[in-house]
């Protein structure tokens, strides 16, 4: 249970026991508390006072499946508020297996200088000069680092976008195949990492000093029950493996909630060309992979390897959000172009969601035509080339919108919306507007609760019950992100029996009682810390709103607008 603090101004490295005030915390609860406590809320996010915190979840490094989830926290240069960005792959398991509760990167290297931060199998930390690798794209970087340091490390890195401090820059991390294709995409944390002069973390995957469990037997019993539930659920047990998260394309499109051509419509006529079913068909026909394991200790295998018509690798893993942002949102029905765009974003180190929406705004402003996949590819290449347009795209849709003086920019707190239109699912309006994270779907995904077809009890066109649903889901997700369980493994904690299994595991690790109140308290304290930081950073209730377009433009084919009132939005955080 160690904190490792690395100061890139002084080059000091300090390892110490987790301070009492952070005892029992992991993941997002830890990063948000720490950032709120230690980072001046009004600081320059690209300056030396910001901190970048890498924290595995509380249950990472335990026998529980689907727990290699890392939270990365900082002040976001995109939103100007607090950010937790979450990513899978192997890094969380690697850090947790070394007994590292948090890696805190402070200060700032001299402009233009870059370092690698290496942690070996014995937990020894060193800073290495990365100057020779400046400007490298992530795939080439990982290839070089693998040659130099072997293939038993987890590599977490930035590409040229992060080095240029672009606010849609991602942090990429390696999957089980060693490809830098898993992304902590949202919030521009790649720019923070670049501003600190940190090019990559290289963490040994061989650690054998995970935190001891107070009651290992009780833990394992609960973990077994959890895994059983994940396997037994049809969605996590079969569907996700076969079709990936892309399986969401057709149902969300059928519901008229698939934002198309910069959210001018909620249905895309070419949705079936870019659906999970069609993607799986193409992959299988060409000799790629579905039911692919991307993350350590995963039993869902939702990843895929997308290949071209000659069977050559294009990208991994092609996800719903990317298929939306580079597909429907830009009017593009060509899955090969989408796959190429996914690869480019991973390689250059860009959030695919923000980048697709940035392209959509540019197209909506008349810069290029909707549906022109090749133009989209060219725009993303410009980010790496460092052109003026590239800089705008790399800074996300708000920057593009400002440049073109365009009035249809779907961002909340500066961060773009995701693949669910709030006009067709009112509950998502509440989440997008109120989450301290900015336009973020995983922060409070209430889609199933809103779709009667998926067991939802809420009328998706009505305001009734939406605030409560979003609030409760935001609290719940903050807790999920703190224990480090994968979003898609939530089938294991569904229902009173499932969630009780999680309480048992937390208690079996900590040796202290843990129940429903503690779970709720964990989520609430995390959100409170985030809200406090944002208030101190200057956010007011005016920032918990959606852009005008959502209140004024009915979205075809269901033809509704957002009807959640300002008062309702402001009642979301009643704690």
């Amino acid at each position, binding site marked *: 249970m160690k904190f490792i603090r690395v100061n890139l101004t002084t080059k000091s490295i300090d390892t110490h026991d987790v301070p009492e005030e952070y005892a029992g915390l992991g993941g997002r609860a830890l990063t948000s508390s720490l950032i709120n406590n230690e980072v001046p809320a009004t600081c320059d996010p690209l300056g030396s006072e910001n901190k970048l915190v890498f924290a595995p979840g509380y249950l990472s490094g335990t026998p529980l499946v689907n727990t290699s989830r890392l939270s990365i926290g900082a002040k976001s240069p995109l939103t100007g508020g607090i950010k937790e960005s979450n990513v899978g792959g192997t890094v969380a398991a690697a850090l947790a297996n070394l007994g590292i509760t948090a890696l805190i990167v402070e200060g700032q290297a001299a402009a233009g200088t870059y370092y690698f931060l290496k942690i070996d199998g014995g937990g020894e930390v060193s800073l290495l000069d990365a100057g020779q690798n400046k400007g490298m794209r992530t795939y080439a970087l990982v290839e070089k680092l693998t040659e130099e340091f072997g293939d038993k490390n987890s590599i977490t890195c930035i590409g040229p976008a992060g080095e240029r401090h672009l606010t849609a820059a991602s942090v990429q991390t390696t999957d089980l195949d060693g490809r830098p294709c898993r992304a902590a995409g949202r919030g521009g944390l790649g720019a923070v990492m670049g501003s600190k002069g940190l090019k990559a973390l290289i963490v040994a995957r061989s650690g054998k000093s995970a935190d001891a469990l107070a009651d290992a037997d009780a833990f394992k019993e609960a973990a077994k029950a959890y895994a059983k539930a994940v396997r037994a659920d*049809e*969605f996590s047990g079969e569907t996700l493996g076969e079709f990936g998260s892309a399986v969401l394309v*057709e*149902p969300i499109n059928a519901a008229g909630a698939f934002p198309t051509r910069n959210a001018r419509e909620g*249905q895309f006529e070419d949705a079936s060309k870019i659906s999970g079913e069609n993607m799986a068909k193409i992959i299988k026909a060409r000799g790629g992979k579905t039911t692919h394991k991307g993350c350590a200790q995963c039993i869902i295998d939702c990843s895929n390897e997308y290949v071209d018509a000659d069977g050559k690798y294009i990208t991994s893993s092609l996800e719903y*959000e990317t298929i939306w942002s580079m597909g429907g949102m830009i009017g593009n029905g060509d899955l090969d172009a989408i796959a190429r765009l996914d690869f480019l974003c991973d390689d250059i180190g860009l959030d695919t969601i923000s980048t697709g929406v940035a392209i959509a705004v540019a197209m909506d402003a008349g810069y290029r035509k909707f549906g022109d996949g090749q133009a989209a590819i060219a725009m993303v290449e410009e980010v790496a080339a460092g052109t003026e347009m590239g800089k705008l795209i790399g800074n996300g849709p708000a920057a593009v919108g400002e440049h073109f003086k365009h009035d249809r920019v779907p961002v909340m707190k500066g961060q773009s919306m995701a693949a669910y239109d709030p006009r067709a699912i009112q509950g998502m309006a509440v989440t997008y507007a109120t989450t301290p994270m900015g336009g973020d779907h995983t922060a409070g995904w209430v889609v*199933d609760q809103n779709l009667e077809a*998926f067991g939802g009890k809420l009328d998706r066109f009505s305001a009734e019950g939406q605030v409560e649903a979003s609030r409760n889901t935001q609290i719940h997700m903050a807790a999920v992100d703190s224990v480090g369980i994968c979003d*898609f493994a939530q089938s294991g904690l569904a229902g009173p029996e499932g969630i009780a299994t999680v309480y048992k595991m937390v208690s079996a690790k900590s040796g202290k009682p843990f129940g429903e109140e503690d779970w709720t308290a964990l989520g609430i304290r995390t959100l409170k810390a985030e809200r406090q930081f944002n208030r101190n950073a200057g956010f007011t209730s005016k920032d918990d709103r959606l852009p005008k377009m959502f209140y004024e433009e009915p979205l075809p084919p269901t033809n509704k607008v957002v009807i959640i009132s300002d008062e309702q939005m402001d009642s979301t955080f009643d704690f």
Partner: protein
Amino acid sequence: MKYLSDYDHDQGLVLELPDHTDAAALIDYLGIPKSRVGMVSANGQQVKPDDILPENAIVKVFQPIFGG
């Protein structure tokens, strides 16, 4: 579609049904338990259990979803 033997996902199924068959009746006909059905769409639009399926409709049956 494990409730139907020999179902080929690429080909789908062509069914001839009586006029005014609604979505619920189709699900019954296919023998799929209601709990395994998330959503039904006809010609790309979500339909409710008592919606009549149009002539020559392309119908898709989705399992319950969870997501991100």
